[in-house]
């Protein structure tokens, strides 16, 4: 099954809603602590059966240090995927993204120091039809 953009958009909607709100987090933003790696976090709801997107932080969250994330899609029909870390799309730092399998991407980025509470993982995906979807989730919620 190929993932069309409407499905893609739907699948990411909850993620964008979570990330768009920004705001405070119960996690520290003073750059002093490290947060251990997270378990898988669903990036959104699923409209078409079998289509899910999931993000996992695969390293500790240490301001100033390298962090790694894995984004997976149950459908490989995404032409490209970009990951950025920051507080907005224009100043966020791009992560190095490698495809490690069908519908699996690993992102590596050096985290800002300090890491603001509102810092988000920003994801931009281009569907097989050429349309683009942007969404985000606060890093401390991953």
């Amino acid at each position, binding site marked *: 099954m190929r993932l069309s953009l409407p499905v893609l958009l739907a699948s990411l*909607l909850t993620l964008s809603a979570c990330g768009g709100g920004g705001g405070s987090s119960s996690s520290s933003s003073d750059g002093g602590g490290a947060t251990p790696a997270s378990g898988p976090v669903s990036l959104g709801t699923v409209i078409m059966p079998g289509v899910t997107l999931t993000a996992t932080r695969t390293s500790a969250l240490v301001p100033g240090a390298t962090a790694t994330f894995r984004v997976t899609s149950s459908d490989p029909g995404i032409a490209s995927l970009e990951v950025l870390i920051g507080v907005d799309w224009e100043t966020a730092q791009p992560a190095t993204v490698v495809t490690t399998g069908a519908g699996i991407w690993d992102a590596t980025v050096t985290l800002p120091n300090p890491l603001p509470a509102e810092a988000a993982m920003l994801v931009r995906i281009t569907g097989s039809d050429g349309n683009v979807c942007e*969404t985000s989730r606060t890093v401390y919620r991953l």
Partner: protein
Amino acid sequence: MSGTQYRCVATNSAGSATSTAATLTVSGLPTGWSTADIGSVAATGSASVTNGVWTVTGSGADIWGNADGFRFVSLPASGDLSITARVTGLTVTNAWAKAGVMVRETTAAGSRNAFTCLTGSNGSSYQRRLSTNGKSTYTGGPAWSAPAWVRLERVGARFISSVSADGTTWTEIRRENITMNVAVQIGLAVTSHANGQLCTATFSNVTVISTLPAAN
């Protein structure tokens, strides 16, 4: 004034007579506004304003991809500008039915545009087409449905998309530069995302600010 009750008084040499009260209702569109279906639509839309409530019906497959299908009620504008509206209602013809405020370069289906909208049941979003006949880009906003406020501003090439639950506290979805002609169309856009069906959206508190006179 629309909504006001009026009585007619007729007077002649025999005296005068007063009619029963009648309420004057003014509908249509304010001066300068026009409405049209954009792109391929299978049902004709409409737009009217009654007592400050804008009712827009629109068909069309979507505002998306490289060509749009929807109803647009718009005003020519130019330069720096903003449009704000409260989407008070939206018929959920589809989870991706959309109603919101749009700045559009032309009325061609593949025109460059920017659009802040509410969807049927997929929350708020900011969309745009950065090049004529090009693909579209989506950025999700808060997961709100109508009623909620939507806003789009342009300052120079800078577009800012925001939404608000109460019209006071605003959440910015996205800001970015978009190359677009100085002279544009600005207004309200509605698509049913179910071509052939009409989606009805209602708006209030529609406010347009443009710092330069519209180019003719």
